[in-house]
């Protein structure tokens, strides 16, 4: 069926036995979650404990294999990058491999997915314990793990796209897990449709890139490593103009705009909070939404050739970071505040790509995955304990849910970039990059850091320290364990040398940038403390003074309304109605005209059938005579 061959492009010397073992481990990382997902969905759909055990066990196996590869690679036993693949589809001129690419970038992302994922899977065991459809949930979660690993370990564009669509599907299924609730079903649809819009551009970009990728001697390709070597040559020789490549880059960037929820296609992410909270933590904060950023890092060799596209990426990212942070000001739902924060931090990462710093983006992605997963799991613990999501109805949680509050505080501090915690270091890298390349963007990013501190402070002071008395109980150990694990990661992720692992020698620490951002953060926290905890400033008068921007932000810049207006008035009334008219009049009309023509001809020909046998004989004889004369004439 498939022709199996292992293409191991080993740079250094690797022990052949280790290489064979590493290949098996690489396949195991990718395929174990798939096997578990199939097993759960086929035979375990009514066996809840089996589903839980299979999902957690499957991802834990992936994690162990990843750790094995990680240590082999970090100690230099295993030469990276190395690749194992099979030829999956081979058509004339289009060969699609399916495989696993192991290098420093994919290893760190795989660690994020399997490590944080394992914690969240375990947490789900507690969170979804009483859910009737928990088996479906764990099946989809396993399928999601396979899908995201397909993206992360992909060796080529097509495999990446397949994973891309699969994570979209899993996201849809998991947002709509409680599908009996209309808002959840609608949110799932919205996420899926918005992503389809973006992926349309993405697939066109992929196909276009494939179509221009041939050289005189070699066929077209979708393979990353081949393209990486070939594109600079093609551009230099003029075979592929930079302008064409820029357009391709913009089309490819459509994918991350949808999946990583960048402005203006960010609208699906806040609504995606309708799903179970561990899903929000894993998919809509730590991994899937970061896949867009990962894809940009993975293929940065393409984007660094096209500065104009990088500029677009920069401004889209900066706009997302700033606008989403402002949206966090006026939101009252615990999870949605975190969703806007995710949007804003994704904006930071995309901005870092636009500034030409994939390492900084990947660094922030990793630390963000730790502390944002932590924050969401903490929020999930609060919701699990109090059955309340409105921050104004919460309060006093530091007493009733001590451990949840403590870990949530650590996550919040990491998010705002409190000195010494992981978010501080990774955000600092991006700010340094911004100051080097683009001063206005640097100022905006620093302001955004202050705004992040403000809305996070508001969340903390109102929901956890507030006067309200939410009657909560602390969550079970199976949920607290992952919280502690992630809290630990959020603290240490800044010290384990992620930038160095990704190949950037450490630059001197920029005290000026760090101090400025810390000052902005301190200002943000202080203002929120004065407003919401000390109540030194009456919030009411401030709201009245800021009535106009307030309504603007509360309605989320009216973007949802614009889309609704567009769909209702332009798409339905003009485009769809036009298409319907075209179909009913032109297409159906043409079909009916052909039918009428056949009918009319039939009516005419019917007249020849007189029923008089001798008329038939006469016509027949005349025909035969005519044939004979023709025959004689030809001879």
């Amino acid at each position, binding site marked *: 069926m498939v022709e199996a061959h292992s293409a191991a492009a080993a740079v250094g010397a690797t022990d052949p036995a280790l290489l064979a073992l590493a290949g098996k481990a690489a396949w195991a990382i990718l395929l174990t979650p798939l096997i578990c997902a199939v097993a759960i969905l086929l035979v375990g759909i009514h066996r809840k404990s089996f589903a839980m055990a299979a999902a957690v066990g499957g991802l834990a196996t992936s994690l162990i294999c990843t750790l094995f590869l990680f240590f082999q690679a970090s100690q230099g036993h295993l030469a990276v990058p190395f690749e194992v693949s099979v030829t999956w589809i081979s058509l004339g001129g289009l060969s699609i491999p399916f495989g696993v690419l192991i290098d420093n970038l994919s290893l760190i992302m795989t660690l994020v997915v399997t490590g944080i994922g394992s914690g969240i899977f375990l947490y789900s065991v507690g969170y979804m314990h009483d859910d009737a459809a928990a088996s479906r949930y764990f099946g989809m979660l396993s399928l999601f793990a396979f899908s995201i690993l397909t993206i992360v370990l992909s060796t080529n564009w097509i495999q990446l796209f397949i994973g891309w669509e699969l994570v979209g599907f899993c996201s849809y299924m998991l947002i709509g897990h409680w599908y009996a609730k209309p808002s959840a079903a609608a949110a799932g649809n919205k996420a899926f449709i918005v992503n389809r819009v973006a992926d349309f551009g993405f697939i066109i970009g992929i196909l276009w890139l494939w179509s221009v990728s041939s050289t005189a001697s070699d066929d077209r390709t979708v393979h990353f490593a081949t393209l990486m070597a070939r594109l600079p040559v093609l551009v230099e020789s003029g075979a592929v103009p930079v302008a064409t490549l820029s357009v391709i880059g913009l089309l490819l960037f459509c994918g991350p705009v949808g999946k990583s929820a960048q402005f203006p296609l960010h609208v699906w992410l806040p609504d995606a909070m309708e799903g179970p909270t561990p899903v929000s933590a894993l998919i809509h904060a730590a991994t899937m939404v970061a896949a867009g950023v990962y894809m940009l890092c993975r293929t940065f060799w393409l984007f660094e050739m096209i500065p104009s596209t990088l500029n677009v990426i920069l401004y889209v990212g900066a706009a997302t970071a700033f606008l989403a942070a402002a949206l966090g000001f006026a939101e009252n739902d615990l999870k949605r505040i975190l969703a806007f924060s995710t949007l804003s931090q994704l904006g930071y990462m995309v901005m870092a790509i636009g500034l030409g710093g994939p390492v900084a983006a990947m660094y922030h992605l990793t630390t963000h995955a730790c502390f944002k997963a932590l924050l969401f799991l903490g929020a999930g613990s609060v919701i699990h304990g109090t059955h309340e999501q409105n921050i104004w109805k919460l309060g006093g949680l530091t007493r009733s849910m001590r451990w949840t509050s403590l870990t949530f505080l650590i996550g919040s501090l990491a998010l705002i970039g409190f000195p010494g915690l992981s978010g501080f270091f990774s955000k600092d890298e991006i700010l340094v990059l911004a100051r080097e390349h683009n001063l206005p963007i640097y100022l905006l990013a620093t302001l955004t850091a202050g705004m992040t501190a403000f809305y996070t402070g508001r969340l903390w002071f109102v929901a956890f320290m507030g006067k309200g008395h939410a009657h909560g109980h602390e969550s079970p150990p199976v949920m607290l364990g992952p919280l502690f694990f992630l809290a630990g990661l959020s603290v240490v992720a800044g010290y384990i040398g992620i930038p160095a692992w990704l190949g950037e020698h450490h630059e001197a620490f920029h005290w000026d940038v760090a101090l400025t951002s810390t000052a902005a953060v301190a200002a943000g926290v202080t203002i929120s403390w004065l407003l919401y905890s000390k109540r030194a400033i009456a919030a009411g008068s401030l709201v009245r003074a800021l009535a106009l921007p307030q309504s603007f932000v509360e309605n989320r810049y009216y973007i949802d309304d614009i889309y609704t207006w567009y769909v209702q008035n332009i798409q339905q009334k003009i485009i769809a109605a036009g298409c319907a008219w075209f179909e009913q009049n032109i297409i159906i009309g043409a079909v009916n005209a052909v039918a009428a023509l056949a009918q009319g001809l039939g009516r005419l020909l019917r*007249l020849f*059938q007189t*029923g*008089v*046998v*001798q008329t038939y*004989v*006469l016509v027949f*004889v005349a025909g035969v005579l005519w044939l004979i004369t023709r025959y004689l004439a030809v001879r």
Partner: protein
Amino acid sequence: MVTVTHYVVASAALFCIGLAGVMSRRNVLMILLCVELMLNAANLLFVAYSKAWGNLHGQMIVFFVITVAAAEVTVGLAIAILMMRQRNTLDADAVQSMKW
């Protein structure tokens, strides 16, 4: 000396008489008889050429034709009898209900 040409001419004459009869007569029985005439014109030609070329292929065909003609007459006469019973006529022009 009777050559093959004589037979051909005789056969053609018979065929044309039969054809004219089929086209002009209105009585179903006469039409059937004329069809037989045309078939036998063909038979005559087959036999003549069989003799001229010294093999039996033509004769063999003739036996087929005679057999088929017998079957054809059986069906034709049955139709004629039914026509007489149902419509009380043997006029071919009177039976033209099989039309548009």
